[in-house]
């Protein structure tokens, strides 16, 4: 029973696993593009956490409808927050990619160890 209960929170498990995968890629990979992919996975994990916590069982979109009494709504606020966080994530990713392009122009490589050797 306890185990089933724990498995029931599978969204949070996926969040934790994605977080770890992303962090691993950021730390371990030497290719700068792969690092950025890791960073993206890392950020997406947090989106999943926010989206999961706003879900109310049986809840719908928070719109008042005629004829429905005492409707159950999912909390819309975390979705709005995460919309902002997604924008932040996209800007970070694009800025990071722009940096990689310039690093490639200046160093001719996007491998971290080769860049370190070049200086």
């Amino acid at each position, binding site marked *: 029973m306890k185990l089933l209960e724990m498995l029931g929170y599978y969204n949070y498990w996926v969040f934790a696993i994605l*977080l770890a995968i992303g*962090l691993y890629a*950021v730390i371990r990979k030497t290719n*700068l593009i792969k*690092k950025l992919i890791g*960073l993206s996975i*890392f*950020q997406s994990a*947090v989106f999943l*956490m*926010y989206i999961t*916590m706003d879900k109310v069982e049986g809840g719908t979109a928070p719109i008042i409808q005629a004829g429905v009494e005492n409707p159950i709504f999912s*909390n819309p606020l*975390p979705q709005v*927050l995460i919309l*902002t*966080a997604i924008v*932040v994530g996209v*800007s*970070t990713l694009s*800025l*990071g990619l722009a*940096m*990689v392009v*310039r*690093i490639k122009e*200046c*160093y001719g490589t996007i491998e*971290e160890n080769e*860049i*370190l050797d070049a*200086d």
Partner: protein
Amino acid sequence: MDLLAHLPALQVVVPMLSAPLIVMLQPRGLAWAGATAAALLSFAIAIALTFAVLDGQTLQYAMGGWPAPYGIALSVDAFSAIVLLVITGASSAALLAAKPSIDQQIESERQPLFYAAWLLVLSGLVGIVVAADAFNIFVFMEISSLASYILIAGGPNRRALPAVFKYLMMGTIGATFYLIGVGLIYMMTGTLNLADIQVRLSDVTDINPLLVAAGFITIGLALKAAVFPMHVWVPNAYTYAPHMVTVFLAACATKVALYVLIRFDYMIFQTTLADHQMQFAMFAMPLAIIGILVASSVAMFEGNLKRLLASSSIAQIGYILLGASFISIIGLSASAMHMFNHALAKGGLFLAVACLAYHYRDLRLSQLGGAGARMPWTCAAIVVCGLSLIGVPGTAGFISKWLLINAALQSGPWGWGLVAIILISSLMAVFYVWRIVEAIYFQAPIEEDAPKAEAPIQMLLVTGLVALLNIYFGIFPQVPLELANSAAALLLEGAK
């Protein structure tokens, strides 16, 4: 219409709206003037806010008239005022002096965009300080970070690029950790307003998510604040950034993250989690001490002037954190004072470095021989700010070191050991500042009979002014001291 009432919002809005406007300014040469005017205006706003909160009150502002906790709230108290003064002051001083140095380092067609990014950093940093809710702090943090990556990468040295990439990785991880912590708190309380979180957390019975949140937020902000051992992005980012950007960021960027860390911990976690004061002290104090000692010894043996000062910055972050870890009024006011005084000392030093760099392309200490004779005023400013960095009586640095030593003595049986550590690290500072003095005054000149060639007058004037302020606030520290004391009192009141 009472303009004073809208100052907290204007503090953020002025630089933010100026940023796109100066990109469109014609002719393009006006970009610098526009950016400087916007920075000076926000400095003026910060000064007005400081006088409004000097007596220990807190200014509240509801965006669009929607009352908290439903609307977006801004608040300014004595602690915010100190940090606002540091941010806007550093940005104004750096921009006033910046033109010759930036003309040398950035191509003229990119300059309007560069100044726009500068103003975005400014508005993000002040936004962090005035925001009264956890999620807006995150958004402003990312605005300032993204723009500061652009500023640092703007320099002519290609090594800036990998440095920025590293900063971007670590900065984003830090911000995302913070976001996770905020999410967990929201999960438990259903609110993001800091004051409201504090109220509602007292009803929360399951504290495990809060402990996790405290961990994520502390680590995330410590990454942003470059607390040892999460400081590895600092030396390269500061060293290869354009010189004026280093002045601005070294004076305030990491301190703002530390400000959020202190505020969050004192206001939210220490009030609601049992034994959290102890946990915070046990976490922060060792990191602070190791950071001070390690970074100071790295600075003692560093050959590049900018990198030496960057290492010293990491040690100073340690002092600020050490003050906060005492959980006492005097410790907190030492922290707040050190934020102010270190910004003066390090801002002045980096301004002087920018002056040196106007003629010396290579900033390794071994290449700076003869600078004392060639640029006497610049080098005099380096000496004054260096003394303030060490904490010699009569300079601003002395005040905060003195407070810190007092706080250490009152902190309990370990106090004497801490005082010894502060004194040892001050001796290390004497050592590395002396190395700079030796390099510029007593080293054999690289070129014989180089003509006297000072930096442009506007850079010299600002550098000289900051150096004099180091002495002024060493002799008349009343205003920042009063602010720091009421900031500390407010923070501890929140923690009770």
